C-alpha cells in the first residue's frame, strides 16, 4: 500500500513554505470546527482579531496575557534546548510566586526599590530550586523528567492552596479563605497603565538569545541536547551544565510567577497561572526554541486568549474555542514536522529497507 520513508533534509525555503501551509490548514480546520458549532467562522475570526487588538485597552489586555506566556516559554526553551523535557513550568511558576510571597510578607517594611528586586531574586531561586529536583533525580537515578516535572506541578499548586487556607490566609477577609494581599510597595510599577512585566520579558528574550547563541554555556547546552555522549567526550562537566541550565529554566518560569503576582493579582492564588505553564510548552515548540520567534508566537497566542474572552462576551461563543484553535494549530504544525523528515510513497513491492525506517 503506502510506505513511509525518511527523506533527505529539506531546504530552509521549503521548510518555511511547509510551515506556512500547516498554519493555513490549521486555520481552515479551526474555521470548519467553528462552523460545525453553529457560528459564522469568518465573523468569529474577525471578532477575535478585533477583540485582541481592536482598541488600546484590548491590546493592553493582550500584552498582559502575553507577558507571562512569553516568560514561561523562554524558561522551558532553555531546558528543551538540552532535550530536558521540562513540563513543570506551571509548578516553577507557582514556586516563584511563593518565593516572592515569602519576601513580601516577611520584609513588608522595605521600600519598593528594595522589596521588588528581592522578590524577584527569591522567585528565581525558588522556581529554580523546584526545577532542580527533577534534574537531580534524573542525573542520579535516570528518572523521567517528563513525569517528575508534571507531578511536581500539582505539588506546587497544592502548596499554594495550603498557604491560602493556612499560614497566609487573610484574617480580614470575613471567613473567605483568601490569601493576604502584598503590601502596596510590592506592586509592579506601571507605564501608561500597563505593568512593566513586558519590559522584563523582552529583556529576558535578549538575555536568552545571547545565552544560547553566543555564550559558552549556551554552546554546551546545545551540544548536550544534540548528543550527551559528545558532550562528555569533549570533556564537559555534563552534571554541572544540567544543573545550571535547569536552574535558569526554572528560575525564568519563577519570574513569570512573580510578574503575575506583583503585576496583576497583588497576591497569590491557585489559579494565578490560568494554565499558561502548559500553553508555554506549545508556544516554545512552535517557535522552534528561537527566543526572537517566541515573541511573535506568544503574541499570537495571547491574541487568541484575549480574543477568546472577547468572543465569549460579545458573540456568546464559548471562550474554549480559542483553546480548540490552539490545539488544532499545534496538531498541524507537529504534523508538518513529520513531513519535513519523512515522506509517504506508494509501495510497489516489499522492500527490506523501508520496513526498517518505517517502524
Amino acid at each position, binding site marked *: 500500500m503506502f510506505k513511509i520513508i525518511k527523506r533527505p533534509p529539506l531546504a530552509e525555503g521549503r521548510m*518555511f513554505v511547509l510551515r506556512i501551509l500547516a498554519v493555513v490548514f490549521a486555520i481552515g480546520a479551526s474555521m470548519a470546527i467553528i462552523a460545525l458549532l453553529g457560528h459564522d467562522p469568518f465573523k468569529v475570526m474577525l471578532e477575535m482579531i478585533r477583540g485582541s*487588538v481592536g*482598541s*488600546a*485597552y*484590548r*491590546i*493592553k*489586555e493582550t*500584552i*498582559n496575557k502575553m507577558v507571562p506566556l512569553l516568560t514561561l516559554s523562554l524558561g522551558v526553551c532553555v531546558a528543551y534546548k538540552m532535550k530536558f523535557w521540562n513540563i513543570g513550568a506551571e509548578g516553577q511558576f507557582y514556586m516563584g510566586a511563593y518565593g516572592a510571597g515569602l519576601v513580601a510578607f516577611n520584609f513588608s517594611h522595605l521600600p519598593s526599590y528594595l522589596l521588588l528586586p528581592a522578590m524577584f531574586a527569591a522567585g528565581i531561586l525558588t522556581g529554580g530550586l523546584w526545577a532542580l529536583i527533577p534534574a537531580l533525580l534524573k542525573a542520579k537515578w535516570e528518572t523521567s523528567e517528563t513525569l517528575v516535572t508534571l507531578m511536581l506541578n500539582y505539588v506546587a499548586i497544592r502548596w499554594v492552596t495550603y498557604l491560602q*487556607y493556612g499560614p497566609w*490566609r*487573610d*484574617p480580614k*477577609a*470575613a*471567613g*473567605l*479563605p*483568601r490569601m493576604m494581599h502584598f503590601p502596596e510597595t510590592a506592586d509592579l510599577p506601571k*507605564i*501608561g*497603565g*500597563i505593568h512593566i512585566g*513586558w519590559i522584563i520579558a*523582552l529583556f529576558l528574550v535578549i538575555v536568552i538569545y545571547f545565552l544560547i547563541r553566543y555564550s559558552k554555556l549556551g554552546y554546551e547546552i546545545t551540544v548536550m541536547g544534540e548528543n550527551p555522549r559528545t558532550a562528555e567526550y569533549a570533556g564537559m562537566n555534563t552534571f554541572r551544565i544540567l544543573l545550571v541550565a535547569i536552574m535558569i529554566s526554572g528560575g525564568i518560569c519563577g519570574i513569570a510567577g512573580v510578574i503575575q503576582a506583583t503585576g*496583576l*493579582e*497583588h497576591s497569590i*492564588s491557585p*489559579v*494565578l497561572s*490560568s494554565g499558561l505553564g502548559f500553553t508555554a510548552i506549545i508556544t516554545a515548540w512552535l517557535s522552534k526554541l*528561537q527566543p*526572537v*520567534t517566541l*515573541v*511573535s508566537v506568544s*503574541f499570537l497566542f495571547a491574541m487568541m486568549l484575549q480574543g477568546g*474572552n*472577547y468572543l*465569549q*462576551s*460579545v458573540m*456568546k461563543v464559548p471562550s474554549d474555542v480559542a483553546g480548540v484553535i490552539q490545539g488544532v494549530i499545534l496538531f498541524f504544525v507537529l504534523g508538518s514536522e513529520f513531513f519535513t523528515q519523512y515522506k509517504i510513497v506508494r509501495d510497489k513491492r516489499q522492500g527490506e529497507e523501508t520496513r526498517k525506517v518505517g517502524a
Partner: protein
Amino acid sequence: MQKKGLAALLCLVMMMSVFTLAGCGSTAGSTATQAPATETAQAPAAGIPKDKIKVGFIYIGSAHDGGYSQAHDRGRQDMMETLGLTEDQVIVMEDVPEGADCEKAARDMIDNGCNVIYANSFGHGEWLANVAKEFPEVKFGHATGITTYDLPNYSNYMGRIYEARYLSGIAAGMKTKAGKIGYVAAMPIAEVVRGIDAFTLGVRSVNPAATVEVIWMNTWYDPALEKTTATTLLNNGCDVIAQHCDTTSPQVAAEEKGAFAVGYNSSTLDAAPKAYLTAPLFHWGKFYTADVQSAIDGTWKSQRYWEGLSAGVVALDDLSANCAEGTAEKVEAAKAKIMDGSLVIFSGPIKDNEGNEKVKAGEALSDAELESLQWFVEGVIGSVPTSN
C-alpha cells in the same frame, strides 16, 4: 531570515502599541468626565435611556450549573423580559474566579459598553470595587457582599435566604428517620453559617432531637467534591442532605444512596427525582428588574439590598411528593408567621452548640450581628473554623 524579520516587525508593532497606551488612558478619562457632564446639562438625575442600557453579569460558575449561577441567570432573563431588553444589551461572563480575572471581566465589559455590572460571588467584591473606583459613571452590584466600600456607584444585594432555609429545615426535620441530617457547606463566611443555623432551627422546630452535621469544602463550586462530601455525610449515618454549594451533586449522591436531599438556588427535582424534597430559592429577577429600572429612571443609588420572603426575592420551592406527610401544613404555618413578622428566626433563647446562651429570651440578633455570625446553634455538629 524572513521569519526573523516578521518577528522583529511584530515586536515593533507591539512596542508602538504600548506607547499609544498613554494616549488611551487620557481618552478613557475624557469619556468618563463627559458622561456626567451631559447628564447635568439635561437634568440632575437623568437616567440612562433604555436602549442605551447595557448590563454585564459576572458569574462564579456556569449559567447552567443547576444552582447558584443558574438562579442569577434566570433572574437576568426575567429582568430582560420584564424591561424588554434585547440580547445585545446584556453580556454574561461565566466561570469567573474570585481574583484578578474578575477585575478583568468587569473592565472587558466596560470596554464593550456596559454601564451596569453585577458580580455574583462574595469574593468578587474587592475586585469589582477596584473597577468601580475607576469608573464612577458605571453602576455596580455585588451579590452577597457585606460592604459597598463607601462607593456611590456600588451596591450590595442579597436575599434573606435564611428565612427559606428555615422552612426547608422543617421539611428535612419531618423527613429524617435517623435524626441525622448532613449539610454540605461551602466556605465559613457569615452568610453560610447563618444559613446552617436557620436551617437547624427549622429542623429542631419540628424534630427537637435531630442534629445537623456540617462538613466544609472551602469552595463554592466543585461538582466532584460536593458529591464526595455528601457521600461522606451519608456514610456517617445521615439520611437527609442539605447544601450550601452550587450544583446538584449532593442531591444526586443522596439519590444514589436511597436518602433524601434539600437543594439550593434552583428547583432541581429532575436531578434527583426520588431524593429531592424542596429547596430554598432565590428569585434574583425581582432585584435585577428593580435595579436596572432605577438606572433607567435616574433614581439609582448605592444601597444594601437585603430582602426576604415577603419581598419575593427568596422563596421555598414547591414541596415534592417525597416530603413526609404533614410537611406542607407546618411549612405554611411557619411561612405565614415569618411574613407577618410574628416569627423572627434568630430570636432568643438560642444556645450555641457548646451550650452557651447566645441570644437571651425576648431578644433577637440584629442585621449587623447576622452579617458577622460566626457560631453554630445547638444541634449543629461541627465548628466554624477561625480565620487565624
